[in-house]
């Protein structure tokens, strides 16, 4: 398995090691292949076996006040809830956030690696890297590991010289620029609430409330999402954590229990 030490090199080669004089285009890709007759079928099986179902709900959207990022905190292994307190919003640096969906280890490691690359870029070029550049660096790395079983569905949100930026990057090598994204098994439910309530001119409080409700509704219907709904805001000064509410408590906050007329019913039945 190729290990990425390219944080210290000047360019990331897509395959092979560069020759001594740095000619990145001459080396051909080479890696050991398994000894089987049906290589493609074997690959598909292996990937399906390893592929975690991206059980999570994360979302992010751009509005007039910057970028709002929110996520749940449940980790599941099949039907077993392995943790209710996973940090799915990763702080790449003081002005950029990444969200985690898919393999927890993959997301954590590659976001950390991206943070290193961003810092090295800053040191070499005496200016911060743009959200565009950071997301492209991550997408290129993930593309070079395409087909090798990485599972990453992440959003890179940040604020740079050109204003707020939001990109979706995944382990298939895809990279999309957009205003609203939701990733994970709970994303259809989050999209429903998010798309319905979204307006560009929301205030920061309104946007935070929309993000919180979207995560809550996803955790209500999706078994693989739950725990704590965290909401972060990325503004011109960087990111701040706005809230982290347990979704169980949020449920009763949105739908308070009305006292029922239970006593009367019981009395009637006893009388008959």
């Amino acid at each position: 398995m190729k290990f990425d030490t390219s944080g210290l090199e000047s360019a990331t080669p897509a395959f092979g090691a560069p020759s001594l004089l740095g000619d990145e285009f001459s080396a051909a890709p080479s890696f050991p292949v398994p000894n089987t007759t049906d290589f493609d079928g074997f690959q598909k099986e292996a990937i399906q076996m390893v592929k975690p179902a991206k059980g999570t709900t994360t979302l992010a959207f751009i509005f007039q006040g910057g970028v709002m990022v929110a996520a749940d905190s449940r980790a599941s292994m099949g039907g077993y809830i392995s943790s209710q307190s996973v940090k799915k919003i990763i702080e790449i640096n003081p002005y950029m956030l990444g969200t985690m969906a898919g393999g927890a280890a993959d997301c954590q490691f590659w976001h950390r690696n991206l943070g290193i690359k961003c810092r090295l870029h800053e040191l070499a070029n005496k200016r911060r890297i743009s959200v565009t550049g950071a997301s492209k660096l991550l997408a290129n790395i993930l593309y070079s590991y395409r087909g090798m079983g990485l599972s990453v569905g992440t959003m890179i949100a940040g604020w740079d010289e050109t204003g707020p930026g939001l990109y979706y990057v995944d382990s298939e090598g895809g990279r999309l620029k957009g205003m609203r994204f939701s990733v994970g098994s709970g994303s259809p439910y989050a999209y429903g609430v998010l798309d319905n309530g979204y307006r560009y001119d929301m205030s920061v409080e309104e946007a935070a409330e929309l993000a919180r409700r979207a995560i809550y509704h996803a955790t209500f219907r999706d078994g693989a999402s739950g725990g704590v709904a965290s909401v972060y805001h990325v503004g011109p000064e960087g990111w701040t954590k706005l809230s982290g509410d347990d979704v169980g408590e949020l449920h009763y906050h949105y739908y308070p229990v009305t006292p029922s007329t239970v006593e009367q019913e019981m009395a009637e039945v006893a009388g008959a």
Partner: protein
Amino acid sequence: MARYDRAITVFSPDGHLFQVEYALEAVRKGNAAVGVRGTDIVVLGVEKKSTAKLQDSRSVRKIVNLDDHIALACAGLKADARVLINKARIECQSHRLTVEDPVTVEYITRYIAGLQQKYTQSGGVRPFGLSTLIVGFDPHTGVPSLYQTDPSGTFSAWKANATGRNSNSIREFLEKNYKETSGQETIKLAIRALLEVVESGGKNIEVAVMTKEHGLRQLEEAEIDVIAAEIEAEKAAAEAAKKGPPKET
């Protein structure tokens, strides 16, 4: 048996890299090149040896584009220059691909200087025999810059500089006469500097001008002749002024 890991550039007992110094000699024998930075414009000028009668002068362009907003002129071994320029052009596009941004002048200068240094510390190769003058505009701030690299791989930013034949005299002239200029004044300053060491006339110098809006523009021979004539006239006027007043007293 490949014996290319025998280093060619090694230290001398008193701490010199002779191959690098010899490369600098090659640069000193190359055509004069001058670069001047203005407030909104950068100018490159290169001495052009008179083209042979049968030679197509258009194929001997000495000032080249590295990208829309970066240009390069060099002094020294032109064949080495071709290799370096090709690698730099690829790097400019590669940078656009990986970070979706054009290179800054400093970045590509650092890259070229890094390449030149690599060839002083690798087996089986000799250093590049050229110094480059790199000009351009920062894609974000629009600030113009002029950088110079040399065969040892060092680089620095300059307000005005010269390299190649007689570069010392040109630099002295620039040090005496440089001031912040813009537009046509900068072009005149660059041509005046070059004409210190080159025979006057449009067919002996190649001048290119880069602005933020229009990119790189090569000046026509006729244009250069006009400016050269202006410079001559100004010089003659200055001479006359010097001789004039004393007679009256």
